[in-house]
């Protein structure tokens, strides 16, 4: 499996990247870890005549936590997410999710930026970013802008990012309370059959606030406000969890594929969300 030939560039600053994107338009793509793009190129499902490697650009990776705001550079790998003490303290759901992505070798290469920018509904970080209400930072010919993760995804592989823009970082407020990322997959390395990201905060034995998002159950990640609303104010008892699951099922729209028919995916979605809520609650 050899991809079509391409011109390779390794610019050393963002201006160089933007200039190449402007020059080549649709024919150019940036590559971070490449573990989504390279397989697509090898299968010749992605045609990239001009490949712009971001590895030579300083400052695109790294994790910082400042005044309760977490910033993760786009080139930060899943492996770096897993071993970051700062992130484990500020947003432990990131590590829990990253550990469930692919396998060790892929996690050394795969990046947070690539995972969220690619727009693949099977990727785990987009759902998690819905849950955390993250912001995506884009740099383009007209300067920098930030887009809410919840407004970023339009359809499979279609996002708010313009062709000439590069996603450079994600930021989010460090979440409070309990968390869980629960993923059902057929085997290590597979995308989710269904996955759920849950944050819950507790006050006086009741759910004070909640955020719930689902992965690979629609052509975009699904942030289910209705599911979270069903939990708020309850003691997170069986009836409340059931109500949240029912609400979530109204927001997803899975399609049949080799992971199973629609009915099975809806079933799996309910199971993973139930488990995620209980685990998040137990940690709240």
């Amino acid at each position, binding site marked *: 499996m050899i991809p079509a030939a391409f*011109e*390779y560039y390794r610019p050393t600053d963002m201006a160089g990247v933007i200039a190449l994107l402007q020059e080549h338009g649709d024919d150019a793509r940036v590559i971070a870890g490449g573990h989504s793009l390279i*397989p697509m190129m090898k299968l010749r499902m992605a045609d990239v005549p001009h*490949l712009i490697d971001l590895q030579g650009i300083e400052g695109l990776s790294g994790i910082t936590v400042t005044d309760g705001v977490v910033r993760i550079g786009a080139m930060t790998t899943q*492996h770096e997410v897993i071993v970051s003490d700062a992130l484990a303290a500020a947003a432990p759901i990131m590590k829990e999710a990253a550990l469930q992505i692919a396998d060790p070798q892929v996690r050394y290469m795969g990046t947070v930026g690539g995972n969220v920018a690619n727009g693949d509904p099977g990727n785990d970080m987009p759902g998690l970013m819905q849950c955390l209400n993250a912001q995506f930072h884009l740099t383009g010919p007209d300067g920098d802008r930030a887009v809410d993760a919840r407004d970023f995804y339009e359809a499979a592989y279609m996002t708010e990012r313009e062709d000439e823009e590069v996603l450079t970082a994600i930021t989010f407020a460090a979440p409070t309370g309990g968390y869980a990322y629960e993923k059902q997959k057929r085997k290590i390395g597979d995308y989710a059959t269904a996955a759920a990201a849950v944050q819950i905060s507790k006050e006086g034995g009741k759910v004070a606030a909640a955020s719930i998002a689902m992965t690979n159950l629609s052509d975009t990640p699904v942030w289910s406000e209705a599911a979270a609303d069903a939990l708020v104010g309850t003691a997170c008892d069986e009836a409340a969890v059931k109500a949240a699951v029912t609400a979530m099922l109204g927001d997803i729209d899975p399609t049949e594929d080799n992971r199973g028919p629609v009915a099975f995916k809806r079933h799996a979605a309910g199971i993973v969300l139930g488990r995620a809520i209980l685990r998040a609650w137990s940690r709240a």
Partner: protein
Amino acid sequence: MSNKMHVKLNVNGQDHEFLAEPRELLIYALREKLNITGPHVGCETSHCGACTVTMNGKSVKSCTVFVAQANGAEVTTIEGLGTPDALHVLQESFKEHHGLQCGFCTPGMITRAAKLLEENPNPTEEEVRFGIAGNICRCTGYQNIVKSILSAASELNAAKEAAQ
């Protein structure tokens, strides 16, 4: 479009320079240009891990890296871990504990295991299994591979203690 580029790689401590198309996969550059045939082509789709090498300190599947991306990198393959006369502790351990049958996955398995033990010198059985989850073996059922890695870990730790 198919212009070749100048590629520099340091493989197992030795510098190499050659011309290659950017789209060439690292595994083919290693095997066909440099005649370093320890890393194997199993699935060629990032699933099996037989092509695992260490690149700039990371375990990577060399079928999923373009040689252009690897330009300037330091790469370690199974050939860089031990030699037939002086086997790496992991190689001895795989031999001792029957950690292989057909041997096809073994170079990738050992290269991955070496990195795993470097990062986590005292892994539990579960951590070993999780740490080699990107390497597929179709013969052993993994039992003896896990045993080999755990045994190598104890040996490496004992040697470290003795040295102190």
